[in-house]
Structure formats: structure tokens, C-alpha cells
């Protein structure tokens, strides 16, 4: 039996509800985008229902520790196609067993979630580290990113707490939405970029008059802090994979 859902988190949770309602035996969950009709396989289309989804989520909250719930949410944000099926079976396993079953790392779905969560948390942590704000002429601090996973929901609080006294925007170019902090609250925004504009680095004329100076000082500092006798390119690239270099002021040549 193939369960087909719309790809959303409420959709996934509804699918779990429907499985317990129908008990169809062995089932695989696929999102509508990934679904290709197979011969000899029955399918069932899940209609997302927020009431059902809420019941499942409340149930998971009762059965799981906070840390496990977070792994669940992170796995969803990974947007990896196979993750939804693991989340589906993970939920079924948790509801079928006593509290504490999430510690069974011998189970493939529990282990899969642990792995997805690890990747997503690492990407989240990288964004907290590698985002570089540029100060614009009107005092707004702007950064653009294109993370491997959808981590904006996970980093929002960190940046809100840290940069409480400055307005900032972090924009996900890949997913075409961003976060804006207006000194009070963080809200989701979408930006309509003009044709041909550099989304990563706004034109110098739009920047704060000291932006170039601090960027230069930071590059200088980065060079001075290096110890040539200890050069270790492999380790350097391992810590800062090349795909992130485009964010980093210190790695971009003038």
C-alpha cells in the first residue's frame, strides 16, 4: 500500500492518523511530487486535515522527549524525499510502543531520524557561524544564504536574541523567503529582486560608508591570525567546505 501526501508536515501527521484508522498493514509514505504510479500497488491519497494532524502531534508530544521531538522536526526540515517515509514509520513505531521506545537505536527509522537531525543541526550551526551581515546605508544588516536544508525556522531565535538592537534580514535565496527583524519581532518576508541585481552583495552605493572598511579589517585579521608553519589545507576545507566560501567575507577576493 502506498500512502500519498501533499508534502506538508500536517499532511504527514494526517497520514499517520489515517494508518491507525485503516490499519492497512505494510505501507510506504510518498509525497505527491515523488509519487509514480506502480503496477500492482494500491495507493491511498491522504487529505490533509489539521484536526487529525493536531491529534497526532499532541500524541507525539506525550510520548517523546523534547530532544526527540526536535529530531522529528529537523528531519522534516531536511526536505530529503526518503525522510517522510522514515518519519511516518517512526511515528507508528512510537505509538505502538511504551514511552521510551525512541532510545532503540537498533531500529532503522530511529537511527535514520538521528542521522537526518544531525545533518540539519549541523547546517543550522553552520548558518549561525557563516552568515555575514553587510550594513546598508539605512542601517539594516543584510545577509543572503542558500542552505542545504530549510533551517531558517531553526535559526530565527538565535539571531533575534543576539542582534536585538539592530534591524536585520536573512534571506534564503534557494527557498525564496527570508526573515526580517524590526527591533521588536521577526517576520517572514519575500523580496522581489529587480532583474540582474546582485542578491548576495548589494551595490556599494547602497552600503553604509564604513562597510568596506570593516570588511577589509576582517580580511586583514583573518590573514594575520593564520600561522603559515602550520598550514593544513585539508583540515581547513573540512571545517569550511568550499560551497560556503561565497558567504564568507574573508574568503571572497575584493
Amino acid at each position, binding site marked *: 500500500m502506498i500512502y500519498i501526501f501533499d508534502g506538508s508536515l500536517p499532511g504527514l501527521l494526517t497520514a499517520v492518523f489515517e494508518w491507525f484508522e485503516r490499519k492497512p498493514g505494510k505501507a510506504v509514505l510518498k509525497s505527491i511530487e515523488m509519487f509514480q504510479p506502480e503496477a500492482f500497488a494500491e495507493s491511498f491519497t491522504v487529505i490533509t486535515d489539521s484536526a487529525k494532524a493536531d491529534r497526532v502531534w499532541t500524541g507525539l508530544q506525550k510520548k517523546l522527549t523534547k530532544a526527540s521531538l526536535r529530531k522529528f522536526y529537523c528531519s522534516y526540515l531536511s526536505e530529503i524525499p526518503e525522510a517522510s517515509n522514515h518519519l511516518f514509520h517512526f511515528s507508528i513505531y512510537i505509538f505502538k510502543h511504551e514511552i521510551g521506545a525512541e*532510545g532503540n537505536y537498533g531500529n532503522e527509522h530511529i537511527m535514520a531520524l538521528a542521522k537526518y537531525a544531525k545533518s540539519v543541526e549541523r547546517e543550522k550551526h553552520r548558518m549561525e557561524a557563516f552568515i555575514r551581515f553587510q550594513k546598508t546605508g539605512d542601517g539594516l544588516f543584510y545577509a543572503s544564504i542558500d542552505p542545504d536544508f530549510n533551517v531558517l525556522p531553526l535559526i530565527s531565535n538565535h539571531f533575534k536574541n543576539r542582534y536585538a538592537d539592530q534591524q536585520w534580514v536573512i534571506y534564503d535565496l534557494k527557498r525564496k523567503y527570508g526573515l526580517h527583524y524590526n527591533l521588536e519581532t521577526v517576520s517572514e518576508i519575500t523580496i522581489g529582486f529587480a532583474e540582474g541585481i546582485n542578491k548576495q552583495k548589494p551595490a556599494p552605493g547602497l552600503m553604509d560608508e564604513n562597510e568596506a572598511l570593516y570588511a577589509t579589517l576582517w580580511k586583514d585579521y583573518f590573514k594575520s591570525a*593564520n600561522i603559515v608553519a602550520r598550514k593544513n589545507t585539508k583540515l581547513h576545507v573540512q571545517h569550511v567546505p568550499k560551497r560556503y566560501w561565497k558567504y564568507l567575507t574573508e574568503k571572497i577576493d575584493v
Partner: protein
Amino acid sequence: MSDRIREKLNILADAAKYDVSCSSSGGTRKNDNKGLGNSHVSGICHTYTEDGRCVSLLKILLTNHCIYDCLFCVSRKSNDIKRAAFTVDEVVDLTMNFYRRNYIEGLFLSSGIFKNADFTMERLLLVVKKLRLEQNYNGYIHLKTIPGASDELIKEAGLYADRMSINLEMPTEAGLKLLAPEKNHADVIKPLDFVQKQIAQFSADKKLIKHIPKFVPAGQSTQMVIGATPESDKDIMYTANAFYRNFSLKRVYYSGYIPISNDSRMPVLGTQPPLLRENRLYQTDWLMRFYGFKVQEILNDANPNLDVDIDPKLSWAIRNMQHFPVDINQADYRMILRIPGIGVMSAQKIVQARKFGKLRIDQLKKIGIAYNKAKHFIICADSPYQLKDYQGTQIKAFILAESKSKYLKTDNNQMLLF
């Protein structure tokens, strides 16, 4: 103006880089005054230099003018280098502007000693007070304690800094006397002890009174230079162990000596820094702090130096084969931690997972243990039956045969024929 500040930054960052501490963890400062900065419990490395070291803090000296002439230090009085000094406002401005752009986690401020200890400590204190009180800055601050500064100044600094540190420099008193005759370990111990007692006092008061200011919430650390003087690994780690115990240090750093002078008492210029040795010392440090090993188990009179070709945990296991094989499904957590190829995270997963059934090889691999190393030391549900009892030396040969050290290029003892 911008040229002068660039030059200063280059000189004073270059002089500060031999201090290896870059940790920004353990801070507990919250942004509750709607200012700038909020500490992150595990710290954040914002970038890595080309030598692979993390950059978390803006690490600078206030000045590299110094009245001392320590042979291992680039800023020593007799060294013919460019000198510079930041003003208090320059340091504050750089810190705030770097922090606002998410370049850094905070400031690591150290200094050469100019005039005297109190005069230097006062200047450092001015910087941190200005950041905290005028700029509402809640980011991380790591401040050097200047040996010989008055208790009042050190105590006041502790109210604004997250971490304080003083470097032992050389692992033994004899080593220090050789290269820096004007210094001694007692000068380091006195302020370390003073700060430690203050931390203890503040945390005791906190139990009684709710609103007590923070005092060095991320604790103290120190650093030793490795390979400039002829101490054994045992000397180094026994000193580290004593400092961890006596002063509740958060970290001891080991810094492989990079030749900076041509004095006959030290390795000559151009000598490779002892990177592999440094790595083995850190591994030992981790075994002491997170794996429940006593330093005497790893280093003792029979084994005064760490193995170069294998890590210290494997080395211990091979010397103590009577403890192995360990049954993954039965053994105590503390014993699982001692198995080569199993780290803290995997050990925790193993003791959780085995409650649900006996673990097999494929599950252990998925949990993430280094199975090829661990297999010589464990039994699990489907371990192959073994007729032969291998000796430790044989196991070492097996493991070396199938692993390739990342240090091999610098550590190739094999002779080339042509």
C-alpha cells in the same frame, strides 16, 4: 586613519595568534538589556584559518610593547619587530563592528606588559568595562589575567569577563627558568588560585542571594608550549592533571612550539612544529576529561611518552588486553567507553539501544562506531567465533595494516631505496 588602524590590527593580531585558546563556550550571558549579543552555550567557530584552526574570537593584544624578555615569545623586549598599541576606543569599536556583522563570537584580549602589571591590567579593565557598561555588549570576553596585578583589579575584571586565563608557558618550572629567567610558576599559580576562590565564593553566595553578579562564568584556562624544552609527555600531562584538579580549570591548551628565534637553547628556525605530538596530548587530555581515564593509566614511568603511531586509547587497550574482549550487550558504560573505536556518543547510544534487544554487528556499524578498530576488542550478538587469542602486538599490526594515518606524510619512517 584607516591605514593606521589596519597596520595596528595586523601587528597586534599577528602577535596574539600563538595563544591557541579560541573557545567561546560556557558563557551564560543573556541579552536581557536589549543590547548586542547573547552567548551560545557551546560556542560558535565563525571561520577557520588556512592552518585549520578555528576563529571564534577577535584575538588581539592591546599592545606588543613588553618589559619582559621571554625567549619563546615574539613580543620579547629584545626582538626587533614593529610595535603598536590600540587605544581603548579602537578595541571597543572593532569588537562591536565585527560582532554586529556576525564575524565573531567575542573578544579575546591580551597584552604585553608595559610599565608594570597593574598599569596593564587597568587598561584591559577599561576596555571590558566600556563594552559591558556603555555599549550594552553581552558577547563573549576572554581576558588575560596579568600575573602580579593587584587582587582588586583582577576581582573587578572578573565581573565583566566570561573567561580568564594565565599561561603556564612551560610544563615545568625548570623549563620556564631556562627560557624566561624572570618568571616562575608561582606567579601564575597565585592569581589562578585567587580567581578560582572568587568563583567558588560567588557560586556559594548565589545559593543564598538570588541576584548576584556573574563572576568568570566560563571559568579559567591555561596554555603550555610543547617541544621548546625537553619535557616528556608524562611531565606535561601530570602538570596538566594537577592544574585541572587544583584550580578546576576548564581547559589546558597544548601549543606546539613554532620556532621564532635562533637561540641555542631552543629548536632552530625552520623546525617543523610538533603537530602529531600535540594531537596525542589533546587525545590524552580528552581521555582524562571525558572517558574516565586516570593520567597514571596512560602515562607512567614504564611509558613516559605517548605512542606516535597509534592513539593513546588504543595504546592503553593493547597494554591491558586482560580487560578485553568486552561484551557490548552486558558491560558497564564505563567499560564501553574504554573500547578503542567507540566514542562518547556511540557509547551512550549502545547502552540505550541494548535495552531493546541484543545488538548485532550491522546495528553497531549504523550507530557509528569505528568497527574495524573496535572488532578486536568486543563481543556482540553475532560476533564470529574466534579460535585464536591474539596478542596485543598482533592486534596493533592488524589495525596499522588497514589504517592510514593522516600524519603519514610527515611521519614516514620507511626508507626510500632510490
